[in-house]
Every structure is written in structure tokens, then in C-alpha cells.
């Protein structure tokens, strides 16, 4: 077999070209990511240390005798009380009612906020009309809405829902508006050139690109909803609808401070847990997009 390289330069070049490009790819991509167990511990220990310091300081204040122990009990009686309550059905019923209100209010707020955000982001007139109002509404303390809400809806679920919505909807809408505003114009141009326009452009390019900001808006919306909800439950107590806020108020009136602080810890824990869910969603989004996450 005669070796005639010149007669098939195309073939030789083709395979060489493929090998070259594959070789370069192999060289370009570095090694894999570091193990995760280490990262979990690195994230966990500062939190555990902070918790220990907080509990320790609380105990020191109690031991110092600054207030009578029936006004400010120490961490031990409070956690013992919390332990008792955790096995009682009343407590879980209250958690259930409060959480249901929170989740329902948040879901409605998220839906309204998304629609409102997209409308304001798209319409120059709407933006001029209510853009700054949406930001302004966030500065309004939610508790200031309750007198009006009670007049409009009496002491009812609707009064609480009203205040949740008015607190959370602007946050969600703001997240959407900011997200849409900061979508790189290059991606929009690319999307248009690939055949997207109008609603499909929103669905396939603008909203996915704005997702990190939308999730931040939702997270903030939840925080506003949760705060408004607890404020509402302190003011608006509805018969046969026990809730965390209502128990909090009752325990103060009855002077049951261990229970009161135990409830506060429960409320804080729920808030932190939901926040952690949002943070993990945010972290996942950033990781998938290759935006560095620290900590």
C-alpha cells in the first residue's frame, strides 16, 4: 500500500482538526470542584458559635438579676416550656393556622406582584404613574394599615390578608421590575434574533434572565408577609381561630413569660427556616448560572 499523503489531505486534515479541537477542550477545562462536606462545616460553625454566644449572654443577663425571673426567665425554663408545648395539639393548631394564613397570603401576593411587576416594567406610563409609589409603599410600616383594615373588614381573616398583601405585593413587584431592568440587552437582542418576540421573548429570555432578582423579591415579600401577619394576629383575634400571634398576646396578658418567649422562639425559627428555603433556591440558581457563591 503506497503511502500517498498528498492524495487525501482533506481526510488527514479533518481528523487532525478534530483532535486538535478536542485536545484544546480537554486542556481548557480544569479540574473538578472541591468536596462539599468541608464547605458544610465551614458554613455551620459560625452559626452554632453565634447561637451559643446569644444563649450565654441571655443567661448572664438573667443571672445578673436585672429583672425578676417571672418577667425575664432564663433559656432553660423557656426551652423546657417550649418542649412541653411541642407535644400539645393546641400549639400545632396555632402554628397550622398562622402558617396557612402566611402561605395563602404569600401565594396571592406573589401572583399579584409578578403580574404588577411585569406590567410596570413593560409600560412606560404605568411606571411613571406608580413606579415610585410601589417603592414608597414598602417604607410604610404594615401595622399602620391595620386601623383601616379593621374598619373595612372588621376583625376577620380578610383584614389580615389585606395587610399581608399590601406589605408583600410591592416587594415582589419591585423584584420583578429590577430584574427586568437589569436583563443584559445582549441577551434580549440574541433572543429576538433567534425568533422570540413579545410574550415568547418574556417567557424564554426576559423572565429567566430576571429570575435571581425575582426570587430576591419573593424572599423579601415573604419577610414582609410574615411580619404583617404576626402584627395582624396580635391586633385581630378571631374566635375559634387560635394563632401564634394570639397566643403571644394572651401569654403576655396572663403573665406566662416562659410561654411568651417560647412562642417568640417558634416564630423566629419558622422565619429562619423559610428564609433558608429561599436562600437555598437562590444559591441553586447562582450555582447553575456560574455566579460565585461565598460561604
Amino acid at each position: 500500500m503506497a503511502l500517498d499523503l498528498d492524495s487525501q489531505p482533506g481526510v488527514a486534515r479533518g481528523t487532525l482538526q478534530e483532535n486538535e479541537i478536542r485536545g484544546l477542550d480537554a486542556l481548557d477545562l480544569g479540574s473538578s470542584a472541591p468536596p462539599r462536606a468541608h464547605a458544610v462545616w465551614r458554613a455551620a460553625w459560625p452559626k452554632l458559635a453565634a447561637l451559643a454566644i446569644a444563649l450565654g449572654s441571655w443567661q448572664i443577663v438573667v443571672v445578673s438579676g436585672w429583672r425578676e425571673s417571672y418577667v425575664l426567665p432564663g433559656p432553660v425554663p423557656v426551652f423546657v416550656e417550649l418542649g412541653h408545648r411541642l407535644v400539645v395539639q393546641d400549639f400545632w393548631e396555632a402554628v397550622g393556622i398562622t402558617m396557612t394564613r402566611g402561605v395563602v397570603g404569600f401565594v396571592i401576593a406573589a401572583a399579584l406582584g409578578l403580574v404588577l411587576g411585569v406590567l410596570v416594567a413593560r409600560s412606560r406610563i404605568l411606571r411613571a404613574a406608580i413606579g415610585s409609589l410601589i417603592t414608597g409603599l414598602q417604607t410604610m410600616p404594615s401595622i399602620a394599615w391595620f386601623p383601616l383594615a379593621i374598619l373595612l373588614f372588621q376583625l376577620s381573616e380578610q383584614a389580615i390578608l389585606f395587610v399581608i398583601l399590601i406589605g408583600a405585593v410591592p416587594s415582589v413587584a419591585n423584584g420583578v421590575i429590577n430584574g427586568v431592568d437589569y436583563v443584559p440587552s445582549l441577551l434580549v437582542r440574541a433572543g429576538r434574533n433567534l425568533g422570540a418576540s413579545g410574550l415568547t421573548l418574556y417567557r424564554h429570555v426576559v423572565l429567566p434572565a430576571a429570575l435571581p432578582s425575582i426570587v430576591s423579591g419573593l424572599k423579601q415579600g415573604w419577610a414582609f408577609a410574615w411580619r404583617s401577619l404576626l402584627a395582624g394576629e396580635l391586633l385581630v383575634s378571631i374566635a375559634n381561630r387560635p394563632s401564634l400571634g394570639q397566643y403571644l398576646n394572651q401569654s403576655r396578658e396572663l403573665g406566662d413569660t416562659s410561654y411568651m418567649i417560647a412562642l417568640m422562639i417558634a416564630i423566629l425559627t419558622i422565619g429562619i427556616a423559610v428564609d433558608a428555603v429561599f436562600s437555598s433556591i437562590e444559591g441553586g440558581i447562582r450555582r447553575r448560572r456560574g455566579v460565585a457563591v461565598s460561604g
Partner: protein
Amino acid sequence: MTTATSTIVQPVDRSSVDRPAVVLERVTKRYTGNNGILALDGISLTVRPGEFLTLVGASGCGKSTLLNLVSGLDQPTSGSVEVNGRAAFMFQDHALFPWLSALDNVATPLRLAGVGKKDREAQALDYLEAVHLADFAHRRPHELSGGMKQRVAIARTLATRAPVLLMDEPFGALDAMTRDLLHDELESIWRERNLTVLFVTHNVREAVRLGDRVVLLSSRPGRVVAEYEVSSDRPRRIEDRAVAVLAGEITDALRKEVARHGA
């Protein structure tokens, strides 16, 4: 056979049987707003179907404006732009969607065209194979190197099934080695698929390496100064003597253009 010939611009023969891929006729683009900059001034250009046309010029020659007009992303102030079929754009920055895998990025134009999930994924994989990236289909853009991202972008552009490709300095940000390999890749793809390419670059060597014809544009406003037919055989290499000779000639003309602005 490595001789380069050059010809100064003459009206292109319109009697050819094939309908031209792109025709620009006395296209002028003036931007409204800050002082009404005249970006393009009376550009007439005909691109043959299957031609690889490269456009070179210094800053401010309106190269990108020209591509925007051809793609339909922008409208000319006067004159007409005619494209036979669709023109797909490829940018200097890959412009991949960071939330989608390479495969889903490539499948996006198919999805927008209403192709079903199974079909579009199979087709997208074929397009990725064309740029030798089928093995990386499920990686996200940030997990790929710069050159690989540009190849995914090429695959995504191919997936639009547009007969005309507009490329705005697509390899400008890559290292020389990767760029050389991508020249080879692009050249094979262009030949195999019979595409028409309008390729903008400020790198004269690159323009000669890739183009059937190189169009030199002046700056502020952009006008066609000269056209050069590149007749050396393909596949070429950027180191080829013929490429270097013609590139030298074009660079001299380009420098003269730039010097006019300093006088």
C-alpha cells in the same frame, strides 16, 4: 496556487442566475440623539449566495451597525436592505443563556420555531456534534471555556436554519490558538452547509484567512473604500504567505484611512 489578486470596488455583476443573498442599496444610517452621528453613508453591497464576505475597518466604521441593519434588529435611515431568507446573528460575546445547558441553548431557536421536545433535542445534538461538542451537551455555559462557548453559539446560530450568518467579531476575545482552530471549524461548516457569511472583524489577517472577498470600510461615516477578492486556495492557514501579502496590502489601505482622521 497561492496568488492573491485584489480589485478596487466595481459594481457587482447583477446578471448572475442566483438571487443575491444580501443586497444593500445606498444604505445610510444616522443615529438620532447626540449630534446625530452618521454611522453609514450610502453603502451599496451585494453578497452572493454561498459567499464568505468579511468586512474590515477601524473603529467607528459602522461595521456593527451594518450587521444590525441586515439582521433587521435596526432600520436604515434611507436606502434599502434586502435579505434572501433569514439572517442569524452571532455576537462577539457568546450571548448564551446562562440558565440553560449547551443543548437547551442550541434547542432554543427550534423551540421558538415550534419543534417538539424530542425532535429539537435530537437536532440540537446534531448541531453540537457539528462543532464537536456533543460530549458537553449538558454543561452550562459557565462550565465551558471561551472557545467552547463560541462554538455553542455557532451551533445555536446554525439551529436557526438561517441561510445567512452575521458574525460580529465572534473570535475577538479568544486566544490565537483557539481562534485558529475556530477558523478551521467555521470554514468547514460554511462549506458543508453552503451558508452565506457576513463576518465583521478588525483583524485584517483574519478577514483574508476566511473571506472570499474582503470589504474595507472607512470610518465616520462608514463608506466602502475598496473590495478585495481573495483567490488563494482553501483550506487556508493564517500563516500562509498569500494571506500575509494581501493582508499587508489591505492594512496599508486601512492605515491611510485612519491617517485621514489625524490630518
